[in-house]
């Protein structure tokens, strides 16, 4: 191909007129869109509060020694009072202290389990979506279908019971049962995006597969992924709580919300505080993530 002189001369460009890239402006805009939905701001505040409590538990917890295997039968099953805002459990331990500490496990469980599978599920979805119709795509999606057809809780319980019950194995179990949701989500977005005219434009320009997948398609999937991820933090925490409710999560004496509810159920309805406060704690954390997820969805939508 004969070379032709470049007809575009950049020597005359007045650089001083070029605006600065303003990252701060974009962040302000995102925050503005997020804050339009007041309820999601409440969700964010709730999550930040819980996270802060979990991180700085040492300085907040009223009775730090009550977190572990402490026994104080003299104060067992005390109703809520100024000394024990949420009452005490069957071993006389302060329930509020144990809830605050249990937030650590719950948050870690939910967030780590989802963050761990996100790259796997996402990449599989990208590949399956881009090469839709080919063997790889069919293989990935059928395997995902198989995983999705197993009831999550039963799968999780199987994994937890085959291996020794522990927080780590509970997280592993949740991850194994959860990745296909991300594969499906990303697959759907990629198959609908890849026939967009702007993908054709990039191809005509000569862009390679990596550019198209990562720079043209992925940004369109980011909003839905982040939204689902935030909502799933809540769902995974719920799943973790369920697991520890049936004794397959965090092992005693370390407190976990599910195990605390489980222990408290036996004392209903007279010593109601033993089950109700941990259950409320689970509800708050899940609610927080659900509200936050809605706000993130609004924030990342294209609407101006």
């Amino acid at each position: 191909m004969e070379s032709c002189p470049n007809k575009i001369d950049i020597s005359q460009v007045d650089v001083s007129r070029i605006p600065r890239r303003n990252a701060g402006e974009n962040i302000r805009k995102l925050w503005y869109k997020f804050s339009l939905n007041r309820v999601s701001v409440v969700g964010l505040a709730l999550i930040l509060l819980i996270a802060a409590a979990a991180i700085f538990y040492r300085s907040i917890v009223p009775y730090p020694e009550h977190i572990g295997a402490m026994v104080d039968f003299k104060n067992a099953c005390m109703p809520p009072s100024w000394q024990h805002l949420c009452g005490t459990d069957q071993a006389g331990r302060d329930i509020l202290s144990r809830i605050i500490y249990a937030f650590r496990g719950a948050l870690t469980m939910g967030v780590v389990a989802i963050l761990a599978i996100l790259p796997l599920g996402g990449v599989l979805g990208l590949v399956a979506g881009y090469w839709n119709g080919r063997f790889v795509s069919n293989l990935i999606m059928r395997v995902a279908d198989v995983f999705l057809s197993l009831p999550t809780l039963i799968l999780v319980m199987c994994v937890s019971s085959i291996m020794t019950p522990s927080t780590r194995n509970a997280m592993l179990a949740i991850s194994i049962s959860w990745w296909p949701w991300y594969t499906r989500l990303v697959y759907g977005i990629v198959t609908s995006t890849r026939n967009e005219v702007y993908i054709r434009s990039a191809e005509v320009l000569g862009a390679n597969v990596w550019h198209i997948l990562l720079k043209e398609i992925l940004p369109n999937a980011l909003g839905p992924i982040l939204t689902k991820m935030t909502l799933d933090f809540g769902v995974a925490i719920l799943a973790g709580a369920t697991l520890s409710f049936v004794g397959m999560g965090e092992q005693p004496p370390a407190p976990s919300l599910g195990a605390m509810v489980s222990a408290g159920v036996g004392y209903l309805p007279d010593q109601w505080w033993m089950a109700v406060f941990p259950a409320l704690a689970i509800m708050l954390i899940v609610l927080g993530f659900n509200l936050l997820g809605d706000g993130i969805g609004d924030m990342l939508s294209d609407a101006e």
Partner: protein
Amino acid sequence: MKSGNDILVVEDLKKYFPVKTKGKQELFVKAIDGVSFSLKPGETLGLVGESGSGKSTVAYDVVGMYSPTSGSIRFKGREIGMLLRERPLPLKKEIQIVFQDPGTSLNPKRTVYKILELPLRIHKICEPKDYVKYVARLMDLVELPYEYMFKYPSALGGGERQMVAIARALATNPQLIVLDEPTSALDVSVQAKIINTLLRLQKEMNLSYLFITHDLSLMRNVASRVAIMYLGKIAEIAPTEDFFRSPRHPYTKMLLSSIPVVSPEEEKYRPERIESRGEIPSPVNVPAGCSFNTRCPFAMERCLKEDPVPVALDAEGLHMARCHLLEMRG
């Protein structure tokens, strides 16, 4: 017609799309069925037709989004009738396309800067440190203010977005730009601005345009030559002046006589009135013989059986039409 300096030569191009049918033999949509034309440097060929005439398919074959079923597309003497992934990178630099709707041809998640920088990156047009300057220059060329550089397409108006799409096509310094109805998705008020910009850029950068449109009256001011497509074939092709002054094919006459005119002067230039009737038939069931016979007021016995061949209507063979009437007149 076949002079050596043609930048693009398309010969007997065919593109059939298979249609799935139950049990019966496979049917084809004959989107393009034997199209030939050529394009000189700096020239604009207007490819005009109704929806379903195959004009966009020609465009997509030229840029490599489809591979032709048969026939040849030669760019500067080199066969390019292949898919994009088989085309070498330097070739992609030479042929660019501007799509109809800038609302869908620009990624809503990428800023104007990122959109315009992409071709520079792919083809290593300049040093990375000069990207910003180069993008600024491209924005100058299409008269977009620099303030838009880090904005997203959603913040721009339709006309401005199309200017971005045009700037992107210019970025690789191409020789041929395929314009696939670049104004038909836009408000009338901005159409003129787009057209003027395109004409100015063509002059400044010696670009060749393959201008796909259904707006015949637009071609009078824009094209050097006009080709009318009907059901995957070129009914008539002629230099613009000839085309509008002495159309020969009944279909061309029908189209030209249906352009509304306002003044008596314009009325004089109208060809004999031919009533527009019927709709373009489905390209799956192309009528036997001349494909226009279902709508042609002059259809004869022969037109129902025999497909006409192109007839040269002037000495240089620049004005051609496919019609049995013209064959008889000689």
